[in-house]
């Protein structure tokens, strides 16, 4: 197998990249930081099994989180970038068999993830040597981490084999990973009132298997075996034991699918209609169908308009008016419908409706923030680097546009669609007010606070996208970095929720402070978070971070515009 030249080339070239070195360094730094922060100050001999377990679980979950964050960045673009550079065809023109090429590409992308897991093993093994952690547990964690790395990596590769553009592959891979890691685990968590415990044994077994597909749940079931988040269905083995065969099966299935897909070349995106333009003022069926007919003759750019902003809205696939308006419309309708459905289906509504309003405001605001966090990087990730990738940047540099005007145009083109999407959920917030006119002023204050958090989050996410896209030269890297940052902010709170007693109050507050979802829930009046007083410090912190990132982006664009 090692005679396969593709494997040698891919493994070597993927491990040689700056990205690989940076990620490896970051991984080990975080592992070191976790140990340093959590190691008892009194001395090693005092380390009880309780404490050892806590450090072990933090390390295991931390390592898993990083693998999950890095997997898409390393695998999702591996095949699409070959397509984008037209190098795939020359590979297929060699006497190598297609499966050899496919296996080579897979090995190259997965090698790094496996190496990442292996480089974290000494940290885990150290705790075993200190006592308190059974050897089987260490082995199980390493095994599940290895399987998770290959499993998540294969998902990235499969998505990559189905797509043509790298940045789209990255977006889809992150979306799928969120589903696999979190949504699949949901039935096992108290949040869903433990769906696992409802229904008969067959029902329970099905939910147990679904949750076993989540590598996050598998890790939790090893390190937090007594937690509410890790308890499986009665009579079933722990999640990690069912995860092993299921993930092996999933790896086999995705590998075969990936192989089949690689055998067949993918055609580039279909060319669009070439000639037809609908002159302004003409109304046809398309006008109503598209809300704004994409073929309608555009207006010339006016003196007060930022050319970059107009250009972004005309050319970026996710920003075009017809799609944006439809997305906003759908969000609007879904949010109101969801609200009404919840209101109608709750049996206590009539009697205790007023009491539920704060909960509903909390749910809606959390959902709106999640929507912004998920869609944001996809919209903003390519803001500046897409121009550099396509070669237009060289032309923009020769124009008289200033750095400030360019960043302003890019920033506006990121913030406007996100703001529209976020605002589309606002009617759902207002609907709730209608049901409880007695405490209107109180609810109204909460809604205003939530809107402030939403606005800040939108500004932060758009700036993060513009910031990363000014730092990186590739859209896929910028999108991945933006997703990684936002997911890491969310994941931190997740870890804290799992083991709140294990962390100091200060750390818990800091973690929540960084998480806009938690802050939005606090702003909406959720009692559990009220004691932390997150709103104002969060707004201040985000304001500073956002402005700093924006300033860096302006400086960076200034540098990019300067003569080389």
């Amino acid at each position, binding site marked *: 197998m090692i005679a396969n030249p593709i494997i040698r080339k891919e493994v070597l070239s993927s491990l040689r990249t700056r990205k690989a070195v940076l990620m490896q360094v970051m991984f080990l730094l975080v592992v070191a930081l976790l140990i340093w922060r959590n190691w008892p100050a009194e001395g090693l001999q005092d380390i009880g099994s309780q404490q050892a377990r806590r450090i072990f679980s933090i390390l295991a979950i931390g390592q898993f989180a990083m693998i999950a964050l890095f997997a898409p960045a390393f695998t999702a673009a591996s095949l699409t970038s070959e397509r984008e550079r037209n190098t795939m065809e020359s590979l297929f023109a060699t006497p190598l068999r297609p499966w050899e090429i496919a296996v080579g590409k897979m090995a190259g992308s997965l090698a790094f993830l496996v190496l990442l897991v292996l480089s974290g093993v000494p940290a885990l093994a150290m705790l075993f040597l200190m006592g308190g952690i059974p050897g089987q547990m260490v082995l199980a964690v390493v095994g599940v981490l290895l399987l998770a790395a290959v499993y998540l990596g294969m998902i990235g590769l499969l998505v990559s084999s189905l797509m043509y553009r790298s940045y789209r592959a990255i977006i889809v891979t992150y979306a799928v990973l969120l589903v696999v890691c979190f949504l699949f685990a949901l039935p096992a968590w108290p949040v869903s009132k433990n769906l696992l415990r409802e229904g008969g044994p067959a029902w329970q077994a099905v939910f147990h298997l679904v949750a076993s597909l989540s590598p996050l749940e598998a890790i939790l079931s090893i390190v937090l075996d007594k937690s509410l988040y890790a308890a499986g269905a009665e009579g079933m083995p722990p999640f990690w034991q069912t995860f092993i065969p299921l993930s092996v099966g999933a790896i086999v299935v995705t590998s075969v699918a990936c192989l089949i897909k690689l055998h067949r070349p993918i055609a580039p995106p279909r*060319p*669009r209609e*070439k*000639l037809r*333009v609908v002159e302004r003022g003409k109304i046809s069926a398309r006008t109503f169908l598209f809300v704004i007919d994409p073929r309608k003759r*555009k207006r*010339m*750019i*006016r*003196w007060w*308009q930022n*050319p*970059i902003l*107009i*250009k972004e809205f*005309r*050319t970026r*696939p996710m920003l*075009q008016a017809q799609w944006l308006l439809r997305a906003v419309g759908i969000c609007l309708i879904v949010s109101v419908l969801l609200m009404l459905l919840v209101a109608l289906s709750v049996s206590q509504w009539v009697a205790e409706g007023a009491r539920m309003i704060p909960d509903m405001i909390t749910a809606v605001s959390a959902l709106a923030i999640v929507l912004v966090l998920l869609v944001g990087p996809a919209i903003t990730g390519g803001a500046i680097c897409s*121009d550099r990738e*396509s*070669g*237009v*940047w*060289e*032309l*923009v*540099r*020769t*124009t*008289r*546009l200033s750095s400030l005007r360019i960043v302003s145009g890019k920033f506006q083109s990121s913030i406007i669609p996100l703001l529209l999407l976020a605002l589309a959920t606002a009617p759902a917030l207002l609907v709730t007010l209608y049901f409880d006119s007695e405490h209107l002023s109180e609810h109204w204050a909460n809604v205003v606070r939530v809107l402030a958090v939403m606005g800040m989050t939108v500004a932060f996410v758009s700036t993060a996208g513009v910031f990363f896209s000014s730092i990186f030269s590739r859209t896929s890297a910028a999108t991945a970095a933006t997703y990684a940052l936002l997911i890491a902010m969310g994941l931190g709170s997740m870890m804290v929720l799992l083991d709140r007693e294990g962390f100091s109050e200060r750390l818990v507050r800091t973690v929540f402070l960084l998480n806009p979802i938690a802050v939005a829930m606090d702003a909406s009046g959720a009692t559990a978070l009220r004691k932390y007083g997150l709103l104002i410090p969060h707004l201040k912190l985000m304001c500073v971070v956002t402005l700093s990132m924006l300033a860096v982006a302006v400086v960076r664009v200034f540098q990019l515009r300067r*003569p*080389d």
Partner: protein
Amino acid sequence: MSRNNDSVVHCDRLTKIYDEIVALEDLSLDIPAGHIFGYIGHNGAGKTTTIRILAGLLEATRGSATICGVDVGSGRDRIKSMVGYMPDSFGVYDQMRVWEYLDFFGAAFKIPRARRRDRIDHVLDITEAEYMRDRFVDTLSHGMKQRVGIARTLMHDPQVLLLDEPANGLDPNARVQMRKLLRRLADGGKTLIVSSHILPELAAVCDSVGIIHEGHLRAWGPLHKVLSEIQRDRLMELKVIDPAQMPQAHKTVTQDDRVSQTDESDKAEGVLRFRFKGDDSALSRLLQSAVSAGIGVVTLREIPLSLEDAYMAISGISSEVPDSGPQPAEDSSAS
């Protein structure tokens, strides 16, 4: 070198060094208004480096360059209005029609809306791209894109156009179109710097050429002058009626000490080629001695040097040429 008064582009000992690589060394030249300057050199010779310095995209390590008297280093903002730059490969936006593309760049050059509308009509007209107005830029063929690229460089009505390999990848028909377009632009008063490694392309259309090799400008000036400068030895072809006389012809010719580098590769056809260092009277004496030796001479002719030969000759003798900088070929019509 003294600066030419009506030169639009002026470079003085322009040098660019990347770490250890000298991309351009002591480049000095003047290009008069309304000229097409053909910039010839193989890949990596320093053409793009020069053009990018003139466009204000690259900082020179040493030396200076001015366009219409404005220094490209210190007056970058003014230079942007004076120069239209088309890179070797330039990006286009997805989902953007040709007129929208031109409108965007017009707005980026701060051209008022009403004037922009006229400019779009004008540049589409001059590049004969009017029929592409509503096409999507990214769906155009390579030749069409190149024309739209030139239309874009013309949007802000610059005095100087810097076109990096505009004929690269074009089919023969599109090349002819491109040549005509370049001529039209020069006739309209624009000064063009056109780089290429496809030499016949430029020979047909340029007023002056510069040949660059490994960062050194080896020769520049009007085309015919550059050719005669390079042509130190005349390349001659002698055709005899009977190929059996070839050994005798060879002997007679090589007896003359002004002859060098004989080539008998076509001796089956009775053709002998050689290099000759002498004037027409010396050549006449050579012919006379051949005829008196009883050789049946059909023709004795001089093979004109092509731009390609000149380029090859210059590349070949690069190590022998001193680094004192090129001398412009004298031509009264050029200035």
